């Protein structure tokens, strides 16, 4: 019987394998070390990811790749998003066939996306036109940013054209957002279970319970949208996935911050790292406007 829309055993194994690898190569200590050294890309980590097939995941085996498809790539990027792995992962993954060394993690590839470039200075290759590029003091300590044209553009009409970015890049971004959404839900629940006030865990209060429930609901609806888009690769499904995943990650991180109370507002807690990264990712691929317009066009036919 079909509509077997569930993870296969192989996909579960891949998911567990990537989580285990990232736990080993980029655990919490490495995360905080990266925060302390902004802008520095860990080449050893990059090669380890390359060695594990992260960038060559979708290259055919004949070309030295792993020979897997979009669903598997989505699962891997979900894990990377969850672990907040820094670096231009998607640009390098997408360049695996075209740029020598990208597949193995020897070459770090960044790419211009609209008016922004992530990781420009640390990359070996930058794809796209970088004329007039200038650094930005990035809101996310784990994502150095450059701005094309340097200065803020005059307010102009919102771009409503067809999606200019590779839909696969948008999908993989949605997968990363899904990883953050699921992780911030876990962090909120952990905190709500252990933090006590008024003589009981704050998770026993319905106001807190309902914040946590909404965290799960948003991440689970985003999950099916992202997974389905990975199966169909339909640009409309991808647009839907990105809208739901952005919502799940950004609102999820904010609610997680709220559940953490004062600690959530500190540099020490990891919550802000998720929120800031979610904001950076939400900017990619033309932002939500592009996806909303694409879906609206499909609707009105």
């Amino acid at each position, binding site marked *: *019987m*079909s*509509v*077997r*829309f*569930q*993870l*296969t055993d192989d*996909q579960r194994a891949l998911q567990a394998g990537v989580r285990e690898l990232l736990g080993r190569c980029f655990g919490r200590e490495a995360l905080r070390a990266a925060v302390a050294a902004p802008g520095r890309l860990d080449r050893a980590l990059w090669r380890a990811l390359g060695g594990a097939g992260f960038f060559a995941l979708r290259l055919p085996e004949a070309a030295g790749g792993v020979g897997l498809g979009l*669903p598997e790539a989505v699962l891997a990027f979900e894990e990377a998003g969850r672990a907040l792995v820094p670096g231009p992962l998607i640009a390098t993954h997408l360049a695996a066939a075209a740029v020598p060394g990208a597949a193995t993690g020897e070459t770090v590839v960044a790419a211009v996306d609209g008016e922004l470039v992530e990781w420009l200075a640390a990359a070996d290759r930058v794809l796209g036109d970088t004329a007039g590029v200038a650094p930005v003091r990035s809101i996310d300590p784990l994502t150095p940013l450059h701005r094309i044209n340097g200065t803020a553009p005059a307010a102009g009409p*919102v771009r*409503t054209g067809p999606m200019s970015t590779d839909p696969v890049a948008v999908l993989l971004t949605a997968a990363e957002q899904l990883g953050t959404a699921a992780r911030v*839900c876990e962090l909120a*629940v952990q905190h*709500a*279970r252990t933090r006590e006030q008024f003589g*009981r*865990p704050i*998770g*026993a*209060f*319905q106001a*807190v*319970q*309902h914040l*946590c*429930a*909404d965290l*799960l*609901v948003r991440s*689970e*609806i*985003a999950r*099916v*949208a992202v*997974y*389905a888009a*990975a*199966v*169909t690769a339909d640009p*409309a*499904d991808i*647009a*839907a*996935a990105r*809208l*739901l995943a952005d919502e799940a990650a950004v609102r999820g991180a904010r609610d997680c911050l709220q559940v953490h109370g004062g600690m959530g507002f500190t540099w020490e807690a990891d919550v802000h790292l998720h929120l800031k990264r979610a904001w950076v990712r939400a900017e990619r691929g033309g932002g939500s*406007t592009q*996806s*909303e*317009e*694409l*879906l*609206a066009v*499909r*609707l*009105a*036919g």
Partner: protein
Amino acid sequence: MDLSYTPEEEEFRARLREWLAKVLPTLPAKPSPDDWPARRAYDLGWQRTLHDAGYAEVHWDASPTTRLIFLEETERAGAPYVGANFVGLLHAGPTIAAEGTAGQRARWLPPILRGEEVWCQGFSEPDAGSDLAALRTRAWRDGDDYVVSGSKIWTSHAEVADWCELLVRTDPDAPRHRGITWLAMPMDADGITVRPLRTLAGSAEFAEVFLDEVRVPAGNRVGAENDGWRVTMVTLSFERGTAFVGEVVACRRVLGELARAARENGRWDDPVLRRRFGRLEAEFRALWRLTQWNVSAAETGGGVPGTGASVFKLRYSHARQELYDAAADVLGPDRLDLDRPWVIDRLSSLSYTIAAGTSQIQRTIVAERILGLPRGR
């Protein structure tokens, strides 16, 4: 992960489509929503048509995927809804099938499948809504009968039902969940008063049912005395993820109709409205995927995990209200005119975050049973 159907499923779909195209034009005109006897006759007639064509048991015997296809295709084709057959096919019938004796199954199941008898549900009470286990309608044994007194509320189709699946308290001293019994009450028994309740949408979609020493034969008890809570939970978990298939298909169609209406009346030029529709389209696409996900989970695991069902309920009920709020924006000032399309639907949508477990109850369930947060209150 796979979203394709097997050749057998595709064949089922093709045959069903062909049959629907043939049979739907032959149906009588839809009755007025206020004419309950006509609605009963129409809904039973459709069930008989399904039965004669071999589709009567699709809710019971078919795989979840086959049922998904059935519900999707009947909605697409504009076939009648399950209507008055709802409780019989989706609650009482499955309960009897799972927990009834051979005699009870033989007595009650065939008339449900053949479209001969209508069931209603007597679960909620004025003081037992979200807290169903607080129900107080009493039943005590008198010879071969139970004698039942109390009142039920939100009972759909009570005016035209033949049977009521009734939850009664048979042991007031036992812990709340252990003193409840499941009875099949004949609706023509003495002592039953049905008072229709008018909804805010103006129609009488359900009723209050008052029970004054109604005699129900003890042989109409399904399951053991005081085991009714467990018997009922079998019913409530029956639908296996397909309860809202037709509605999601319908909402997606409405969304398209609204977009085209907005294009015609010029409101589509407003980017705020357009983007809102883009978001709604994303939402309903995702709800369809969640339906497929839940059905697949039921297919492999035998039941829908609570996560899938609660996530769906919370998102869908809200999305449906958003959909008809967007409809109001397409209509402009016409949104105040009850004769315009979608205006009544907007009113009806207000029940979705309340019926079958309020959003607040659902969130508490998610928090305590799925996320494992400590029990509150």
